[in-house]
């Protein structure tokens, strides 16, 4: 069962990743990106990490995708459908992609990773919670700072200072 699910998820994930980059419409691209993120969440389920999977769904699909959709809808309609690209560059990119894929894949296939399997118990999600506040607590604080900094920075960036206030006073 897991194999079939794995194959389906692989197809969904990689297919929608390509679609996200290649769809003409940015809105459809965003939807395809959601598919990619959901597929990754599916992989997390397969890896017995439901907490991470649901976190991925709630955060990526639930909020980041919303933000992306929202921003995409902000830009003008013709920009949503416009593809700006260079043909030669595209072929070069495809070549690069294939090179990376083949070389890295060969490296991995050749390495010892291939033989790693496991029949041990999956990690309980409670361990993650414990890790957070015991072993990784400096990282937690740091992440808090990063989040705080990001929201501050995003707000400061996104606001506009040059407001001509004649129309929008109350």
């Amino acid at each position: 069962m897991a194999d079939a699910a794995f194959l389906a998820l692989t197809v969904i994930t990689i297919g929608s990743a390509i679609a996200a980059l290649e769809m003409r419409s940015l809105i459809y691209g965003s939807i395809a990106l959601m598919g990619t993120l959901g597929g990754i969440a599916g992989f997390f389920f397969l890896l017995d990490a439901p907490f991470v999977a649901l976190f991925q769904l709630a955060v990526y699909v639930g909020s980041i995708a919303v933000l992306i959709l929202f921003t995409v809808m902000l830009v003008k309609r013709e920009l949503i459908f416009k593809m700006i690209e260079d043909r030669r560059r595209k072929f070069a990119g495809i070549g690069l992609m294939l090179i990376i894929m083949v070389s890295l894949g060969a490296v991995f296939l050749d390495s010892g990773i291939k033989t790693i399997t496991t029949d041990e118990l999956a990690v309980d999600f409670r361990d993650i919670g414990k890790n957070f506040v015991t072993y990784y607590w400096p990282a937690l604080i740091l992440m808090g700072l990063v989040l705080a900094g990001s929201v501050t920075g995003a707000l400061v960036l996104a606001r506009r200072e040059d407001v001509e206030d004649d129309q929008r006073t109350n």
Partner: protein
Amino acid sequence: MEIKLVGEIAGNYSTVVLMFGFAIVAMAPALILSRMISPRKKSNPVKFLPMECGQVPSGEGRTHFMMQYYPYILMFVVFDVMAIFMYAWGSTLLELPKSATLPMLAFFAIMFGAMAFALYQSGRRRIW
């Protein structure tokens, strides 16, 4: 639960996906049936125009953007992460030593500071 095989847990969650799929399979026929039995007259193309209170709308229909409330959606992305992070801590609270609350409180404090700043910024009407 003895979970030794990789991917065993996913089986539990598959019913949610099944339910999702079942709803689609069960409800899509309603639309198709409706499409089949309902009248379809394309007599007047005006009928299918996006009307706006009986007038043909002026301008693009998809450009409205409430910039005034954009900060809230930015804040949502960040604080949603925070909220779900807290579940990792909250669900294991009973097994944790009491000292483990301190880093969480520090995390709260940082997030409170960020939220206070964000709410102050979003409350200022003139800059959005």
